[in-house]
């Protein structure tokens, strides 16, 4: 029976894609590939869990979690942005490893490793179509798809979205054209942080609520972004879904099952090598 695996793979994949879109928006606008992206999501999920434990209205707790991730992302963009603007993409990305470690350390300090699950009220409502699908899973799929589409439209149609694309295209020229570079960048940090917070919440409900695990989920998410060739939102969506489904389906067979968790890494490595097949050297341009 392969259907449950495909469904689970689609759900997980859509969440990879949702996270990936957040990373991509930031990367395209500011040139920062945020390795701390998983940590932002983890912080959002942990905080929401803590607030629910403290008997806060769950929805409010989730909102605060998402806002916290947004604020953290924005704060880092605000503090580090001026420096990051002056260095190449590799150094930008490396600096965000520091962000990841910092947030992870705070989380581990605050929350030890007890049995935790983030239960969404929608987890227990479900229906069966050959396999059981819960409302949470539907929400994940629908939200991820909707956000990818909404982000595409936003970038395509809205003035700020256009400005973000301009920044991604040619930062210096965009600034000469009068775009308020810093403001647009901070907006990208905020949008990306919010998407990270949402996907962190959903990922923690679909996988596990654990700071280290959620922080390093950035690796498969990165794989989705790689499949999107660091530019395409739709490519990222497809990449996330493909990775999720291949991983889940390969886990269904005893021979491939132990290695199914390596799927994102293998896919990403192959895609990078394929994309680079003709280039012997990539010359980095300091942005």
């Amino acid at each position, binding site marked *: 029976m392969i259907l449950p695996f495909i469904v689970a793979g689609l759900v997980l994949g859509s969440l990879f894609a949702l996270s990936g879109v957040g990373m991509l928006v930031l990367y395209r606008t500011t040139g920062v590939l945020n390795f701390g992206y998983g940590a932002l999501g983890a912080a959002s999920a942990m905080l929401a869990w803590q607030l629910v434990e403290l008997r806060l209205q769950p929805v409010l707790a989730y909102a605060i979690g998402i806002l916290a991730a947004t604020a953290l992302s924005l704060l880092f963009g605000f503090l580090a942005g001026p420096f990051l603007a002056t260095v190449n993409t*590799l150094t930008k990305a490396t600096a965000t490893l520091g962000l990841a470690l910092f947030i992870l*350390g705070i989380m581990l300090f605050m929350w030890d490793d007890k049995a935790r699950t983030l239960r969404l009220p929608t987890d227990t409502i479900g229906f069966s179509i050959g396999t059981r699908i819960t409302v949470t899973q539907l929400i994940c799929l629908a939200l991820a798809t909707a956000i990818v589409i909404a982000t595409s439209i936003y970038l395509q149609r809205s003035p700020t979205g256009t400005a973000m694309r301009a920044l991604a295209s040619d930062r210096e020229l965009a600034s000469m054209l009068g775009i308020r570079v810093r403001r647009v960048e901070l907006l990208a940090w905020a949008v990306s942080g919010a998407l990270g917070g949402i996907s962190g919440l959903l990922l923690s409900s679909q996988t596990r609520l654990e700071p280290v695990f959620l*922080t390093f989920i950035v690796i498969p998410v990165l794989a989705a972004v790689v499949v999107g060739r660091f530019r395409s939102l739709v490519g990222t969506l497809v990449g996330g879904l493909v990775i999720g489904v291949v991983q889940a389906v390969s886990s269904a067979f005893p021979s491939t099952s132990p290695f199914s968790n390596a799927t994102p890494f293998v896919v990403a490595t192959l895609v990078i*090598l394929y994309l680079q097949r003709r280039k012997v050297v990539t010359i980095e341009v300091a942005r």
Partner: protein
Amino acid sequence: MTAVPQRSSRIAVWRAEKLFTVRNVALAVALIALFTAGPLVLGAYWTRIVTVSMIFAIAAAGIALLYGRLGLVSLGQVSLIGVGGWITLRVGHATELPFELVLVVAAIGTGLIGVLVGLPALRLSGLNLAIVTLMLAGAFEVVFNVTGFPNGGDGFLGRAQGGVLQQPLPRPVLGTTDPDYFRYVLVVSILMFLVIALHLSNRPGRAWAAIRQSEAGALAAGIGTVRYRLWALAVVSATTGVAGGLLAANAGLLDPISFKASQSILLFATVLIGGAFSLLGAAIAGFLSQGLPPLLDAWGVNGNLIFVILGLGMIQAITTAPQGIAGQLKGLATRLRNRFTQGRSR
């Protein structure tokens, strides 16, 4: 890389005419003192910690070589330690070879795997290489979890399972006790640092510096960039493999849990903080990764705060101190020397 100033590949220590400088003599005296009195002064607990710190310093030197000299970010070096450890345990259990030979096998094996993995990655530079190595670290984490580490059992994986007690690998004859093993590791680490230093001060080091300065320029000057990069990768992988072998013999057993992708990132962070442009920086990085957590424990600080410290330290190193702690120490030494000579000339 605009953030990091270019430096020449000159390492004065290893030029014959400069071999007996005050600094080198002081360094030699310090190392001899560490060799003889180290375990006594440190005590049993810290002897073991410093032993492991020295092992990780070898791996840190590899990361520093790649980052500082070639501008390559490799986020999978701890996985290579694991590969070296795996080979050491496997060969060590299967054969009666002396440990030193096992280390050589581990160096060659890890070097080969490093080159095989690196061969396609060498076409990449910058961000792509960082991502690919991170992905490989993730993949190795999965593989280590599936295969486990050899513990004296049968089969290709050499893994005893199901209620059969695991056998630790005996330590080398010359280093059975903790103080002796400390000295053993110290000597091997110095040898590995020498291997790296000799590369840096000779033709490969100059070629790497040229490549880092300008890829096109190096090509124009007739330097085979792929060949030299591959060579760098081979050297780094082989020395890292030796580090893995030393780590395997330290406790006699290894656990997949020690070789997670996150560990590689932590080690990379410590290299940036320690300083990626000198071997001193690598030594500091080794201590930061293995010695700082127990030090925090001793001061009663929560062990998890190590992440916070390293995270902040890494951001600080990238933004304001690209030379790391080693660079700051050197600057301090230079200032002190200048003040001293000025004072004397007055």
